[in-house]
């Protein structure tokens, strides 16, 4: 190969897929992980309709529904009649197509759809010949090794891709934080707070390996904040309280305040803190919506969940502290020192600062208590640092892009030849890029 082709980095999340080439600072394409196929939306289990039917079913198999029988004569190209991403959403709003989400809770649920989703992402959007490129894919923490093997089977056998590396999203998010000026040493130890649309995870990572037993998730994430903003708008009887408006308000005006009570009185003293948001509907009419306390109240549900939900009441800083406390004692110092944010719902202004302050309070209180108990011994203190950086939104993808452009990246990948030699089980183990012993 004359010049090295850039590696392809694909991060398939539950909500959105991020696709691009290594070395770039942002993904080339970000679109929903959705696929629209002919026929109605498949059953929730995903094991029934929607898949292409098997031709010539043996007679002993045709029990009950017999949905496959009539399709035996089809030689057409029905399997290519589908859309992905934004086009899928558009197609599904019309007649004839049903929408499916092949990734649930971060894990691939329906491999048929996923295979076709990948096929279209590679050939239509990225426009690459997979035989020429190395691929870096991501997986959620605690992904079963069987899922990895399935991924490898598809990547190597269907697409013949030149090489493959599968990295854990949390580890990539740590790598992405290396761009921050606060990070002095490029270690892969730290706590990742990954808050997307559906769920928030707190994942401790030691030397590039996820401490699976300590992962905690919080059922509060971007969508909940949007709902909360919407309910505030509704309560006030605003002219427009659609979900879309709530989302715009959330993204444009929200920030994290140090103290709610003080912030309320500040709003009363400085009326210019109340803003107006103008919504222009497609038919050209525009209405203005008042934006008030929700500016700081919305992200506050991370820190005081009781204002939003009645069944989940633990604030985010307490969860993070608990996660680190449940991790092995020798890595806790590193975990406190490097708390990395990732995902769209961590982008609020001062989110990191507030989190750092709250965790610091908790840690200091604990140290003081143990100092008192020990009878006057002094502790050396503990450093708590929350790292915010510019690439937070697509953290895992950017981390993948960083690692994928390093010259040694290819030596960490498993190649097609190795796969043919050993089989799918080869992807159960990958050496850590940038981990201990690599540099």
């Amino acid at each position, binding site marked *: 190969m004359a010049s090295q082709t*850039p590696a392809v980095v694909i991060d398939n999340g539950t909500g959105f897929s991020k696709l691009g080439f290594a070395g770039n600072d942002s993904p080339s394409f970000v679109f929903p992980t959705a696929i629209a196929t002919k026929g109605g939306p498949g059953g929730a289990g995903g094991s029934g309709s929607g898949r292409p039917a098997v031709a010539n079913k043996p007679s002993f198999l045709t029990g009950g529904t017999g949905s496959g029988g009539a399709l035996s004569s089809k030689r057409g190209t029905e399997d290519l009649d589908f859309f992905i991403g934004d086009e899928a959403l558009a197609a599904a709003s019309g007649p004839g197509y049903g929408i499916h989400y092949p990734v649930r809770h971060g894990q691939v649920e329906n491999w048929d759809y996923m295979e076709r989703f990948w096929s*279209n992402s590679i050939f*239509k959007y*990225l426009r690459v010949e997979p035989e020429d490129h190395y691929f870096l894919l991501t997986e959620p923490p605690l992904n079963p090794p069987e899922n990895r093997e399935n991924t490898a089977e598809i990547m190597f056998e269907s697409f013949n891709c030149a090489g493959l590396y599968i990295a854990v999203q949390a580890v990539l998010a740590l790598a992405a934080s290396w761009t921050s000026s606060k990070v002095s040493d490029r270690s892969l130890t730290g706590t990742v707070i990954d808050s997307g649309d559906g769920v928030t995870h707190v994942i401790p990572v030691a030397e590039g390996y996820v401490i699976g037993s300590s992962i905690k998730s919080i059922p509060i994430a971007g969508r909940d904040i949007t709902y909360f903003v919407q309910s505030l708008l509704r309560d006030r009887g605003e002219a427009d309280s659609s979900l879309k408006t709530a989302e715009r308000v959330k993204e444009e005006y929200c920030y994290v305040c140090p103290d709610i009570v003080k912030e309320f009185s500040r709003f009363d003293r400085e009326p210019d803190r109340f803003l107006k948001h103008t919504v222009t509907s497609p038919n050209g009419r525009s209405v203005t919506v008042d934006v008030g306390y929700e500016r700081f109240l919305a992200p506050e549900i991370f820190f005081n969940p009781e204002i939003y939900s009645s069944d989940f009441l633990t604030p985010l800083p307490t969860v993070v502290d608990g996660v680190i406390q449940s991790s092995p004692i020798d890595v806790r110092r590193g975990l406190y020192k490097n708390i990395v944010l990732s995902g769209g719902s961590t982008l609020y202004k001062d989110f990191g600062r507030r989190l750092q302050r709250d965790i610091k309070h908790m840690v200091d209180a604990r140290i003081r208590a143990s100092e008192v108990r020990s009878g006057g011994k002094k502790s050396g203190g503990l450093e708590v640092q929350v790292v915010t950086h510019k690439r937070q939104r697509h953290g895992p993808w950017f981390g993948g892009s960083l690692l994928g452009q390093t010259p040694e990246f290819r030596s960490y990948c498993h190649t097609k030849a190795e796969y043919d030699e050993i089989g799918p089980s080869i992807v159960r183990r990958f050496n850590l890029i940038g981990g201990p012993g690599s540099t």
Partner: protein
Amino acid sequence: MLLLDYQNVLIQSLLTERFSGAPPVSIDQVVSDFDNVAFHVSTPETKSKILISIAVKCYKELLQYGAQEVLEREYGTYIVSPEAGYDFSVLIDLDNLPADQEAREDLVRRVSLLKRNAMAAPFERAFADFARRQEEASKFTSESAPEGVREGGEVMAIHYRDEEAIYIKASHDRVTVIFSTIFREETDRVFGKVFLQEFVDARRRAIQNAPQVLFRNEPPLELQGVRGLADGTNGEVGYVTFVLFPRHLTLQRRQETISHIQTFRDYFHYHIKASKAYIHSRMRRRTADFLQVLNRARPENEEKERKTASGRTFRVQG
């Protein structure tokens, strides 16, 4: 998706967004396209000036066949001197765009077709050559034609990939386009053969207007005398010949023909992969069905060992 797009979707969506009047941002992206083509989209000086550069492996060959003229015709005043490491660059000034919407869309379309246009030169030259020869040949009957007219022009070779090439040859009654293809993978070769057989048969069965397609493992006669050809003795290399007849080469059809035939290789490989995906999904479905049968096939009343309270068993004396 049956056919692949001709344009680069990223460039298209990026420019459409920029042209729509969104606030200028700095861009710096290196993206790939099929056949080892690389694009670099950047805003080197100010945020309102977008530089798009393309690197094509066979650019030297394309230049020989007149790529410069084709690109100049397409991009005219937007051309700037190529960026270091790339072969050809266009610069678009966002403050200086064509005024009406249609012209803007046309510009987006043209820029996103950069790769297609760069590769189009040899085809255009061959088609022009064909027209000239047809003109000339019409003066003679088939018997009395002098040697030069009957034989056709020289073979233009484009080594667009490391091991694969396109050969184009114009004659007085047709243009022959030959792709050399290579298959690393056993399975792909089998799939490829089936597909190519379909291409060959298509003309016989339904679509009379299709160009004639031939497939063989040895270099076809048109390529006699071309050096550096891999012979297909081990079955890895194949030669796919498209014979384009005058009806494909009319002035209205030319551009369409060029776009189609350029994407042939990628189209071909895309469909091989898509059919593998299809077969995989059928395999999964069938496995699920068989598992169901297996689960159903439990013995109805399993013989259980019966024990007394003290743990002794009774054995049937046989």
